[in-house]
């Protein structure tokens, strides 16, 4: 049963997703942040599908479980495209897109294979594989975003919005990966922790991005690495 809090979080996330897309269209920046906008738009559609599944079959049903994990995996894959797109923007001018795509594809396949071998032989293999793959993909996402954020700091990125988009993504990935890892470490925590944590974390991303698109100018920032700032 989802109470008013659950509906409020769901609605906030959905409205923020709509705000990101509308703002990008209004400012004619939809194609500039194409992967991001596609991800956000598809996230909104996935939210609607999940809401339909929840209303029809219930929160604890198999249908909701498969709808949740299949949409989440699909969004995870699009998220990889988004990360590659952000790398391209940060390394604007350097011709590394081909290498980035290759590296991201290689990582993706390696993660799927690793997750399969971890889940193989488990009693509920499909469920175990979905959870393992989700956890590992999020972890790879953390590493890729960590490297990207390091580049943003190292290159003293001036584009405030781009920097905030990257850091917000990092917060999302690290919190999600941490939650899944906690679930694997302490399965008893799962009903309490995993019921709301992913929803709250997933709401953070469109809210932070909507804020960046609406309030933050694209220029005017000079990020410095933490160690440099103290000098």
């Amino acid at each position, binding site marked *: 049963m989802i109470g008013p809090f659950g509906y409020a979080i769901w609605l906030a996330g959905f409205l923020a997703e709509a705000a990101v897309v509308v703002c990008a269209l209004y400012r004619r920046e939809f194609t500039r942040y194409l992967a991001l906008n596609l991800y956000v738009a598809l996230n909104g559609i996935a939210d609607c599908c999940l809401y339909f599944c929840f209303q029809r079959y219930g929160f604890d049903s198999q249908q909701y479980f498969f709808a949740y994990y299949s949409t989440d995996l699909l969004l995870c894959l699009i998220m990889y495209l988004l990360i590659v797109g952000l790398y391209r923007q940060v390394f604007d001018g350097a011709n590394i897109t081909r290498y980035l795509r290759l590296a991201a594809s290689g990582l993706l396949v390696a993660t799927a294979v690793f997750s399969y071998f971890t889940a193989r032989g488990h009693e509920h293999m499909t469920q175990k594989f979905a959870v393992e793959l989700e956890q590992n993909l999020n*972890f790879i996402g953390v590493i890729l975003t960590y490297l990207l954020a390091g580049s943003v700091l190292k290159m003293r990125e001036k584009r405030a919005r781009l920097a905030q988009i990257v*850091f917000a993504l*990092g*917060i999302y990935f690290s919190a999600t990966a*941490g939650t899944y890892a906690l679930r*694997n470490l302490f399965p008893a925590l799962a009903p309490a922790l995993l019921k709301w944590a992913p929803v709250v974390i997933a709401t953070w991303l469109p809210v932070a991005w909507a804020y960046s698109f609406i309030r933050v100018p694209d220029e*005017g*920032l000079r990020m410095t690495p933490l160690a440099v700032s103290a000098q």
Partner: protein
Amino acid sequence: MMASLICAFSVGAFLQFLVSYCRSLVLSTRQVQVSDQVFEVAHLKSHAVAANDFERFLPLARLCGSYKQDRMRLRVVGAYYAALNVISRLGAMVPSIATWTEHERQHCSYFAAVALDRRIAYSRELCLQQASNAL
């Protein structure tokens, strides 16, 4: 084993991303010039913003009334400043941590000074509008 590794790395990365996000909010105002009226209102003789001035600027900014544009940012930076205070107390014995927190707190104070400046300008504009409407 894998889950423990992911958990430890994720917590560390989460904290770093959180700090970087807060810093990006704070540093976005660094290139904005603070007007003299801010220092007059805060009764500051020196026109340089110090690390401890945040506690002086923030209540004044709140007194100027609600300004939608930076309300959320001011809250986040306030929380960041409070966290920096805790870190500076805990790491007072380590010079590099003390220097870093001092520097960051000074950035937060500058952010609050810019917020105060904007709110003063906004309040004045509102007063002028009301006066012109009354006429």
